C-alpha cells in the first residue's frame, strides 16, 4: 500500500524538528494576522511568500499552510469581540459570537470558537488523510448547474437570517444582489454600474462591505446609544470555563458541521464562507429553540466555527490533488507552491509524497498548536473590551481603515467603506437586517455567473438544472427548506 508509506513519510516531515518549528511559525503568524480585523489569510500568505525564497519546499509549504488555516482560526476573534469580521468565513461567527460577548460572556465565546475551530480542523485533517485521493473526484463533480443550486441553497438562509420583518430581509438581500453586480460582467465583458469609474471595474471587495455594514455601523450605534456606556455587561469578559451544558450544546453542531464544512470546502469556489453560512442555517433549522439564534446561542457560534475551519482543510483537496485553486486564498497558496518549484496536481502524491503528506500531517500539529496558543491568550484578547469605549471605538475605526486600505492600497476603497458604514447605520435605524445583504452579496455574484454559464452551455434551456442530478437534488432541498416553514405556519394558524 503506497499511500501508507507516503503517510508515514509525511509524518516524518511534519514531526522533524524543522517541520514542527515551521508549523509553529506559520500558525503563529497566521493566527495573529487573522485576528486583526480586516487582514485575512490572503494578506497573511502574501506577506510570507518572500520569506520562503530559497527555503526547502517541504518546511516552507508546511509553514504556508499553517499561515492559511491559522488565519482562519484567528479570524473569529475580531468577529466576536468587535463585530468586525476580517475574513468572509468569519461573518457568520459574528451573528451569535458578538451578542454573546455583549452579554459579558466574551471569554466563553472565544473559548467555544477556539475549541470548535480545533475540532473542525482536526476532524477534517483526518478526513483529508483518509480520503484525499478519493475525494478529488468529488471536487470536480460540481458543474455550473450544481454550483448554481448550491448557491441557491445558501440563499434560502435569508428567510432564517431575518429577525422580524421578512419583507425587510428580502429588500436587504435585493440590495446585496445589486451591489454584487457592480463591475465588469465576466460573461460579456460589459461594465455594470461603474459610472465610468476605474476603481469600480473589479466590483467592491467583500471587506469593504463587511467592515462597513458590521464594524462601522456598530461603532455608529455605540456612539449614538450613550446609555450603552452605563451597561456594565459589555465590559465584562466572564469566565472562559465551559459548563457541561455548553459542551453538550456544542457537541452536535461541531460534529455535524465539521463534516458538512469539509465537504463544502472540497468544492472549488465554495469554501469557508459558504460552509459557515450553510452550517449556521442548517443548525438553526434543526434546533429546538431557533429563536435563540442571533442572540448569543452556543450552537449558533459552534456551527460556523467548526465548519469554516473544516472547509479550510477541505480546500486542500482540489489544490493538492488536482492543482485547482478553489478560491482567491488558495490561488495565492498555489502561487507559493510554484515559487518553490512544486507543481500541485494529480502527480504530486506520487512524485513528491513528502510534500503532499507532509503538509497534511503537519496540520494535526498545527491545530494542536493553535489551540495551545489561543486558549491561554483568550483572557488577554478579551481585555480589548475593557478598553474605555471612546478608545475602543477609535481602534475599531483605525483597524477597519487599515484593513480596507491593505486590499489594494487604494483610497477610493476607504470612501466606499465610509459609505457602507453610513448605509449600515441607516439600515439599523430602520431595522433592515444586515446579514441578508452580505449573504446576497457573497453568493449573488457566483450564483449569477453559474446560472449564466449553465445557460450558455445548454443553449438557453433551463432543463440543464433538472438533468444534472446534483443540481436537482440540491434544488429539491432548497425548495423543501422554503416550503416546510410555510406548512408549519399554516398548520399553526389552523390549530
Amino acid at each position: 500500500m503506497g499511500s501508507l508509506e507516503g503517510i508515514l513519510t509525511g509524518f516524518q516531515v511534519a514531526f522533524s524538528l524543522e517541520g514542527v518549528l515551521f508549523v509553529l511559525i506559520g500558525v503563529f503568524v497566521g493566527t495573529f494576522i487573522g485576528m486583526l480585523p480586516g487582514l485575512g489569510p490572503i494578506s497573511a500568505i502574501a506577506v510570507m511568500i518572500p520569506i520562503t525564497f530559497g527555503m526547502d519546499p517541504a518546511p516552507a509549504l508546511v509553514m504556508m499552510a499553517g499561515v492559511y488555516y491559522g488565519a482562519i482560526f484567528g479570524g473569529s476573534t475580531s468577529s466576536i469581540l468587535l463585530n468586525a469580521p476580517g475574513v468572509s468565513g468569519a461573518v457568520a461567527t459574528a451573528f451569535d459570537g458578538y451578542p454573546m460577548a455583549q452579554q459579558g460572556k466574551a471569554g466563553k465565546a472565544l473559548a467555544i470558537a477556539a475549541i470548535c475551530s480545533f475540532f473542525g480542523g482536526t476532524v477534517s485533517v483526518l478526513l483529508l488523510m483518509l480520503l484525499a485521493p478519493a475525494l478529488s473526484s468529488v471536487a470536480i463533480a460540481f458543474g455550473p448547474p450544481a454550483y448554481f443550486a448550491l448557491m441557491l441553497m445558501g440563499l434560502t438562509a435569508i428567510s432564517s437570517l431575518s429577525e422580524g420583518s421578512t419583507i425587510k430581509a428580502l429588500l436587504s438581500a435585493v440590495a446585496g444582489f445589486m451591489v454584487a453586480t457592480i463591475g465588469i460582467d465576466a460573461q460579456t465583458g460589459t461594465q455594470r454600474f461603474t459610472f465610468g469609474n476605474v476603481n469600480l471595474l473589479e466590483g467592491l471587495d467583500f471587506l469593504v462591505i463587511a467592515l462597513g455594514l458590521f464594524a462601522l455601523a456598530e461603532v455608529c450605534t455605540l456612539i449614538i446609544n450613550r446609555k450603552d456606556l452605563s451597561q456594565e455587561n459589555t465590559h465584562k469578559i466572564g469566565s472562559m470555563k465551559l459548563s457541561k451544558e455548553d459542551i453538550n450544546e456544542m457537541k452536535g453542531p461541531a460534529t455535524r458541521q465539521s463534516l458538512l464544512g469539509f465537504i463544502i470546502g472540497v468544492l472549488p469556489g465554495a469554501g469557508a464562507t459558504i460552509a459557515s453560512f450553510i452550517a449556521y442555517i442548517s443548525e438553526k433549522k434543526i434546533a429546538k429553540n431557533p429563536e435563540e439564534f442571533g442572540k448569543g446561542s452556543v450552537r449558533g457560534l459552534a456551527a460556523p466555527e467548526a465548519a469554516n475551519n473544516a472547509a479550510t482543510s477541505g480546500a486542500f483537496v482540489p489544490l493538492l490533488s488536482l492543482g485547482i485553486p478553489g478560491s482567491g486564498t488558495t490561488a495565492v497558496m498555489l502561487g507559493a507552491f510554484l515559487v518553490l518549484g512544486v507543481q500541485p496536481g494529480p502527480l504530486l502524491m506520487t512524485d513528491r509524497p513528502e510534500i503532499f503528506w507532509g503538509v497534511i500531517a503537519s496540520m494535526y500539529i498545527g491545530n494542536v498548536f493553535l489551540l495551545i496558543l489561543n486558549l491561554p491568550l483568550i483572557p488577554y484578547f478579551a481585555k480589548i473590551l475593557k478598553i474605555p469605549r471612546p478608545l475602543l471605538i477609535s481602534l475599531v475605526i483605525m483597524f477597519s481603515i487599515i484593513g480596507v486600505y491593505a486590499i489594494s492600497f487604494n483610497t477610493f476603497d476607504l470612501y466606499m467603506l465610509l459609505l457602507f458604514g453610513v448605509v449600515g447605520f441607516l439600515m439599523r435605524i430602520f431595522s433592515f437586517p444586515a446579514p441578508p445583504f452580505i449573504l446576497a452579496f457573497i453568493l449573488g455574484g457566483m450564483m449569477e455567473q453559474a446560472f449564466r454559464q449553465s445557460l450558455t452551455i445548454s443553449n438557453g434551456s433551463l432543463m440543464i438544472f433538472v438533468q444534472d442530478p446534483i443540481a436537482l437534488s440540491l434544488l429539491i432541498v432548497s425548495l423543501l427548506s422554503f416550503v416546510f416553514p410555510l406548512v408549519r405556519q399554516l398548520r399553526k394558524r389552523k390549530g
Partner: protein
Amino acid sequence: MKKFLLLTVFALFMVITVACSSDSSGEADGSSDDGSWEPEEPIEIVAPAGAGGGWDTTARMVAKVFNEESIIEESIGVVNKAGGGGAVGWAYVAGHEGSGHNMFVASPPLLFIPLNGQSEYGHEDFTPIANVIADYAAFAVAADAKWDNLNELFDDMKEDPSSITVVGTSSPGSMDHIQFVKIAKAAGVDVTKIKYVSDQDGVGLTQLLNGSVDVFSTGVSETVEQVKAGTIKVLGVTSEERLEGEILEDFPTAKEQGIDETFVNWRGFFGPPNMDEAAVAYYEEKFKELSDSEAFADIRKQFGWDEMYMGSEEYSQFLGDEKEKIQTLLDELGLGQ
C-alpha cells in the same frame, strides 16, 4: 493590559510592514551631466493584479534576479494593484509621469482591455522599456474526448457551433477568449458563433474534467501536470515552433496542423508616460543583462517561459502591429469599442 499593548504594537508593526511595501515616493531625477542615468531610490514595479498570478510571478522573479545577481543594486519592490483587469494599476502608474523609479509588468491584456473600452490608458500612454519573455496558449480537451487534433475540433465547430463550449479564465474579448478566436478564425470557423464561458474563479479546468465544457483555453504551463497524469490532452499550442522541454515538446502547434496563425503571450515592462530617455536606456540594458543571465534562464525553464527580448523601440513597433490585428478580431466579434 501590558501584553495587549505589546500585541497592538506588534500588530501595528505588521500592518505597517504590509503597507510600506507600496510606498511611492518623490520623483528624484537621477540624470547626471554626461547623459547617463542611474536609479537613486528604490524602484517600484507594479503588478496590476493580485498576488500569485502571471504578472505577479513575472515581476517578483525579475525583481529577485535583478537584486540577487546584482544587476541593479538599488532595491526593487513589487506592489500589487489589482482591479479592472489591470486598469487600476495602469491608472496608478500613469500618475507617476516622468518618474524613472516606477514601472509595471504587462502582457496582451494591455492591448485588449483598452480596446474593450475598460481602460482609458493603453500601451501608447506608457513608455515601453523591454519585453522579456513569451508564453503561449494551449487548447486542451478531456483525455477521452473524440477530437485528437485541432482540425477535427474545428470541423465539428464549423458544422454545429452550438454543440461545443469553450471555457477560459478571462472575460470575453480578453486573453483566453481572443487567443482561441484568433486560431479558430484562421481555421475558418465562424468566430461570432463560438460559445465561450468565462470562469473567473479559476476553475475552468474543473469544468473541463467534469465534462461541463468541451475545450479549455489556457496557458501552456497550466496543462503540463494534467497531461502527465493523463486526464487531459492538448490539441494544439499557439507557438511558431514546437516548445522545448519534457511533455511540452509533444504538443503540436497549430501551424504544423495547417492553421497558419500564432498567438504570443508576451510579457514585458513599461514605464510611466514620458519616462526619461536616459532612464529607458539604462533599464533596456539591465533587462538585456537579466534576459541573458543564467539565473533567469533557470527561472524561464522552471515556469515554461520562452526567451523573447525586445528593446524599447522594437517593442513599440511590435505592440502597434499586434494592436491592429486584435482590433480587427474584436470588431468582427462586435466587442470593439
